[in-house]
């Protein structure tokens, strides 16, 4: 994934500055391009935004979306909020765990990672999941893993 050189990344980030890019937006762009935010990008974001490394680090660690390592090929977001709880998301989480996927740590196995999230806005067709950005309603551990394998 890391096909962006230092200069290219700086170039991309600088282009943001027309619209007052904040640190967060620069990090989002970095993650869009690289799939994650490598340590080496922190300096570059700090340069482009004209802030200290510490400030970049502060933003990077505040938001749960940012990754410090390359993501799995297939990332499954599993909703664990109340509407999904009411129709069995706790059971879904348990079954995923039995299959080797821990939604708390988001561990990678066979190119798939399952990560917990709080609400995907599909609360009337719960339990809800999202597989590489594709929504899945009335989800079960079985349908989640089938969709994840199909997405590989």
């Amino acid at each position: 994934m890391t096909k962006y050189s230092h200069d290219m990344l700086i170039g991309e980030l600088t282009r943001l500055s027309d619209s007052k890019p904040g640190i967060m937006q620069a990090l989002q762009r970095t993650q869009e391009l690289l799939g994650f935010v490598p340590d080496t990008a922190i300096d570059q974001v700090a340069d482009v935004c004209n802030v200290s490394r510490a400030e970049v680090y502060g933003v990077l660690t505040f938001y749960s979306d940012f990754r410090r390592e390359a993501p799995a090929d297939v990332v499954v977001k599993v909703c664990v909020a109340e509407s999904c709880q009411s129709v069995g998301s706790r059971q879904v989480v348990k079954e995923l765990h039995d299959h080797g996927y821990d939604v708390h740590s988001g561990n990678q196995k066979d190119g798939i990672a399952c990560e917990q999230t709080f609400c995907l806005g599909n609360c009337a067709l719960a339990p809800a999941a999202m597989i590489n950005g594709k929504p899945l309603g009335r989800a079960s551990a079985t349908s989640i893993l089938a969709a994840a394998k199909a997405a590989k």
Partner: protein
Amino acid sequence: MTTVFIPRDSAALSVGADLVAEEFARLIRERNLDAHIVRTGSRGMLWLEPLIEIDTADGRIGYSNVDAAGVSELLDSGVLMGNAHASRIGVVDEHEWLAKQERVTFARVGIIDPLSLSDYEAHGGLVGLRKALELTSDEIVEQVTESGLRGRGGAGFPAGIKWKTVLGASADQKYICCNADEGDSGTFADRMLMEGDPFTLIEGMIIAGIAVGATKGYIYIRSEYPHAIETMNEAIDIAMAAGVLGSSVCGSSKAFTLEVRAGAGSYVCGEETAMLESIEGKRGMIRPKPPIPALVGLYGKPTVINNVMTLSAVPMVLANGAAAYQALGHERSRGTQVFQLAGNIAQGGIVELAFGVSLGELVDGFGGGTLSGRPVKTVQIGGPLGAYLGPDAWNVAMAYESLVQAGGMLGHGGIVVFDDTVNMAQQARFAMEFCAEESCGKCTPCRIGSIRGVETIDRIVAGVEQSKNLELLEDLCETMTDGSLCAMGGLTPLPVRSALKLYPADFGITGGQS
């Protein structure tokens, strides 16, 4: 040529709407049928998705729960003529669930192609904006004030008063910020509006801009909503190209431009000052108030912050007049509320009605009870910071003040239903856990109190020194309520206390305690 309407709303996609659309397209081509597909938002009858509609002389006929494998057979049965079929639900507009509603903000959602500006105008779009362009700033603000429109994001603050403050502030730059963070479980109205009728939000924001003298707006959309982000961005581009947005709004002397900013997975960034920090690219830390954002907001400038539903009600207020909107509602809650039925519910989705409908009518009437078929034990209204209520609250009128009187809060209007298998100690524990996870960290009661809360609930459930730990939990709740800067820490005790009060047995409390 027959039109086949197939939703592109992400809830519909989650149960296969894209596959259905692909299969229709393939078979229309293969069989050389005189038909074409239009993708729409969703009608909000989510338990019927994918719900497709066929345009006939009698109206739009619906077929529910269509799956891709069944499309060929549907076509064989003559659905393009609106013929009989087991999945046929009749004329969709006449469906009891919809016919009983008062769709104002959601009037076009599910009906039009969300990205067709001509569809939008043909269905009453831009009328409000054109009227606003003929009014003075004061007159627009007065209309919004007279309509009684209150903020739909949670606090219910009168929109007109907020706008007036921003209008009265003098500055070289002002902003309109739309809060589309919609983090509450059980809520999806903002998402469905943005995916199903984005021009309504754009129109509402332009009117707000003209009213207060702001030329730039931001829409802060949570990253969990990739489809809404994409649709809003496309709609903004279309509106720019058509001159609805830009340096001369609809050919007038007013300028207004819009930009989407995406969130990054933080619930607390839905709080308005944290949202401003986040739009500026910083950590989502709550700002102390005062100063209020209306005076010192985004980049320190006067800023209107409103929820998607608040801003999306504005075009209708202007188009039909403040009195028409004001005429709907209950006591000091005027207009309509877009209720969202979610969780363990047979018929979940969007119910837009004037304020004042009873909770029971929503859950049992519209919702049809639980999905599991078991008795309803409790509902949580207003998201993770909202109270749990039991069926003895079924008569409560759904409006701001009456819900507060019943010990609850309306919040963003989401209702999450649970059947009798739910364990309320587990739900109370989750409320504390969620607060610990999402706290911005500024206040100790919120950051640490919530972690202690989880431990204390665990001890109560385990039967360890129960009365002492109940007292401790009560102390914690009080400290969080009184010592938190924002509602994250301040309202987390609401679901915890209500669960404990209504369902002590679930905490292993047998005596007269609680």
